[in-house]
């Protein structure tokens, strides 16, 4: 019974992710991506990580994917782009990658099922306080590094987003 609480969102996540990679309309794909992220957030919650679940929604779904949508809207990907997608996405294109991914899937399942202590189950709740205590003590350096990374990304995005980059191309 308990497993259903896990497998229902998991199934939703897998299904919506499959839809993400098959949609031709970017906006629709993004909505499915949000659904996928939300179901993963539910899985997090089920696994006893409520803080991560909240962050998943707030940052992943609430900020990162919004940025995607923002860009999709800025580029105004309308019907022409959907037609172009269907030109790019011929059915034959799926064969090779699908074979490769299936092999990888078999390998992964083999590895995961063959894990030595397969019977250990999850189930402990780890609240925000525990996470915070751990984050700002042994992982302080990682926090600093993440800060550096974000600052670098900020500067990089600012630079890349400027219009003069394209003008420089002209001789």
């Amino acid at each position, binding site marked *: 019974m308990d497993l259903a609480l896990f497998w229902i969102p998991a199934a939703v996540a897998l299904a919506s992710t*499959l839809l*993400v990679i098959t949609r031709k309309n970017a906006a629709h794909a993004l909505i499915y991506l949000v659904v996928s992220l939300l179901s993963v957030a539910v899985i997090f919650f089920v696994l*006893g990580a409520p803080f991560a679940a909240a962050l998943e929604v707030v940052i992943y779904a609430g900020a990162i994917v919004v940025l995607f949508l923002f860009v999709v809207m800025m580029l105004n990907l309308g019907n022409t782009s959907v037609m172009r997608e269907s030109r790019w996405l011929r059915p034959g294109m799926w064969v090779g990658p699908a074979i490769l991914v299936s092999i990888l899937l078999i390998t992964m399942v083999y590895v995961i099922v063959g894990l030595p202590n397969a019977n250990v189950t999850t189930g402990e*709740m780890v609240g925000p306080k525990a996470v915070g205590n751990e984050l700002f003590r042994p992982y302080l350096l*990682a926090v600093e590094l993440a800060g550096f990374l974000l600052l670098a990304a900020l500067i990089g995005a600012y630079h890349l987003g400027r219009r003069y980059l394209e003008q420089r191309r002209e001789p």
Partner: protein
Amino acid sequence: MAIEVPVEHVLLVAAGLFLLGLLGVLVRRNIIFLLMSLEVMMNSAGLAFIAAGAKWGAPDGQIMFMLILALAAAEVAVALGLVLQISRRFDTLDVDAASELNG
């Protein structure tokens, strides 16, 4: 609210998500879909971390997930700037248009 779930079930789901993301990266030519697939892959990695953390009842998994989150945010910020530049320069979103860095 914490439910007992065998850890390999979670890992299987994470593997499934990861592979779907990989499939997306391999198949799609539109750079936006590519980035979305990448997000899916990173998210699946986060799921695996959470599962591992939950298995031991340790917060480290969630911390790793947060670092992945920071990474994803940074990646998206830069990548979307690149998307804008690519769409301006090549007038398309085909990643293969930007293949000048070949050997």
